[in-house]
């Protein structure tokens, strides 16, 4: 007999959480502790040797954070998860487990500006080399593959341009190349899109955005799809070779289809230290409980705002895949049938100055460098999030000087539109 599978909203509320074994507390307690006493020397040895499951030190694992990890893994359909201090931390831990100095990975050039910075500059110091590909030309991913390639990285919905990546096509290229496909699913969230169903082997998140959803906590996550065979060609020594850190155990043969998540925890997180605080984990967990409700409202509001703004006489163009005329509409229908997200960009005919004026004039929209808040947010990427990029990179990333980015909140849509209307007025 097969077990009944619960729906997404049920998992968003329940996955990973259960009444506390000692107190019966129903909400997930905040285990604000650095460490956990051992039952005996032998118990400690078992924990340190990975021979039993449990908590040692909050840098490596925490019971509050673990609820969040299981919940994100369950929502994405992965075998295991790992929460991190930020989305950037999630990325560095993932690549730490995949790359050796001198290795390459192929990444879409339509990415969050912070990721472009991290890949271009910070990774260079580790000898990790990014090779850029263009999601508008999927074959460019294939051409970018070399014998040194160890992974392919894209976003599902790219920030800020509203570019939808043809994930199934990229996944095929990754499969042919024998490398894992990593998808940053921050903008879509698993409510709108599940990259694992499209062939992603690893999913990363900035939990700071829609998953946490309330603009109060920085956090990140890694989800292991459990789909990649780390031992096939022995190119991933963190997974397939005996680890000197753990008396010669081989993580893939010991932990099977959740070995990558374990490697990220016991090798990367343990030694790099970018752990999430349990208090942040608690806030993000509480946010996730209403993810389906919020995403529906975010998407409804965003479509209405996009439809209004595209008809505005001062607007030159709008890039929102939810609009039928958008060049990514067909891909949005395929990958995000329940909505194209709540972040989009548009260009003002008045260029840079008009953008600055709008950002200054709005009163309900908050001018800040975040997305995925209950509140509506506005920013001029060229002068902020994408400031460090060259002008060419800015344009490539969909953040040219005339571009304004909106992250639409869950306020009443009439009030959101009224604020933009007065902000655009002469």
């Amino acid at each position, binding site marked *: *007999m*097969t*077990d*009944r*599978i*619960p729906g997404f909203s*049920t*998992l968003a509320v*329940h*996955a*990973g959480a*259960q*009444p*506390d*074994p000692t107190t019966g507390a129903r909400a997930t307690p905040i285990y604000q502790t650095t460490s*956990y*006493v*051992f*039952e005996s020397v032998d*118990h400690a040895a*078992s924990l340190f*040797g*990975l*021979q*039993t*499951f*449990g*908590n040692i030190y909050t840098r490596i*694992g925490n*019971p509050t954070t*673990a*609820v969040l*990890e*299981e919940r994100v*893994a*369950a*929502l994405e*359909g*992965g*075998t*295991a*998860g790992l*929460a991190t201090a930020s989305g950037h931390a999630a990325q560095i831990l993932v690549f730490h487990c995949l790359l050796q100095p001198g290795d390459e990975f192929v990444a879409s050039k339509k990415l969050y500006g912070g990721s472009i910075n991290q890949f271009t500059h910070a990774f260079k110091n580790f000898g990790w080399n990014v090779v850029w590909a263009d999601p508008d030309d999927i074959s460019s991913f294939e051409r970018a593959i070399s014998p040194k390639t160890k992974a392919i990285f894209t976003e599902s919905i790219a920030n800020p341009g509203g570019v939808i990546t043809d994930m199934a096509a990229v996944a095929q290229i990754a499969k042919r190349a024998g490398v894992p496909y990593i998808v940053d699913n921050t903008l879509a969230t698993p409510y709108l899109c599940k990259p694992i*169903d499209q062939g992603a082997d690893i999913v990363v998140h900035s939990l700071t955005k829609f998953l946490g959803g309330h603009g109060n906590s920085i956090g990140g996550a890694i989800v292991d*799809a*459990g*789909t*990649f*065979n780390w031992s096939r060609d022995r190119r991933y020594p963190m997974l397939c070779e*005996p680890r000197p850190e*753990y*008396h*010669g*155990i081989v993580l893939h043969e*010991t932990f*099977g*289809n*959740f070995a990558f*998540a374990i490697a990220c*925890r016991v090798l990367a997180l343990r030694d790099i230290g970018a752990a999430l605080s349990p208090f942040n984990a608690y806030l993000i967990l509480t946010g996730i409980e209403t993810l389906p409700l919020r995403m529906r409202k975010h998407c409804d509001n965003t479509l209405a705002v996009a439809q209004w703004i595209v008809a505005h006489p001062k607007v030159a163009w709008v890039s929102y895949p939810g609009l039928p005329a958008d060049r990514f509409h067909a891909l949005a229908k395929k990958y995000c049938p329940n909505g194209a997200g709540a972040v989009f960009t548009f260009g003002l005919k008045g260029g840079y100055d008009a953008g600055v004026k709008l950002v200054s004039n709005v009163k309900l929209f908050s001018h800040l460098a975040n997305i995925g808040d209950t509140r509506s947010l506005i920013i001029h990427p060229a002068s902020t999030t994408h400031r460090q990029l060259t002008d060419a990179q800015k344009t490539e990333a969909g953040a040219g000087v005339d571009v304004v980015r909106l992250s639409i909140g869950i306020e009443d849509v009439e009030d959101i539109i009224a604020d933009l209307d007065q902000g655009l007025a002469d």
Partner: protein
Amino acid sequence: MNHDSYSDSYIRGILNTVKTIAMVGASERANRPSYFAFKYLLERGYTMIPVNPLRTGEQILGRRIYVRLGDVPDPIDMVDIFRSSRHALPIVQEALALNPRPQVIWMQLGVRNDEAAALAEAGGVKVVMNRCPKIEYGRLSSEIAWMGVNTRTISAKKAIASGGIQRLSLNRASVSGGTTEAADAAERSERGGRRIIQARNL
């Protein structure tokens, strides 16, 4: 019996019933997966018996190693096969010849032999293939959730502490939770691939 997926109640029923487990292929080396599983199940209260035809030492964690299942003097409730799939059939034949006969044949993660399973089932023995009893115990008790693993269970009932520190009981009330369909599909495809390779080698 469908051996591609098992209900939680089937697995929980087995792990709650058996008391003595003979692990065929248990390694004395502390960094091997079989040693991990052996130690964990021993700590969870099972009477563990290591069986290994290639043994070099006398015991694992104080438990005497036997060369063959037939050498074990005590009744065995479950035989856990920690050998590759092609070795499963003779081990099952040996297990079925025991008196009393074990109630369960369990083949480890990555081990699947449908011929051996059919033989065991014809003999009235329950079969689990391609699963790890340590992982299943950790999943159904939710201990494994401390490692961020998707237990594929949810529950509004209190988890039951089972004595000591960071130990949870298998007798937790749960229903199924999130699935791992992509991982399961990848595993089936890998297995299919291996079969093709074996056939070509023949």
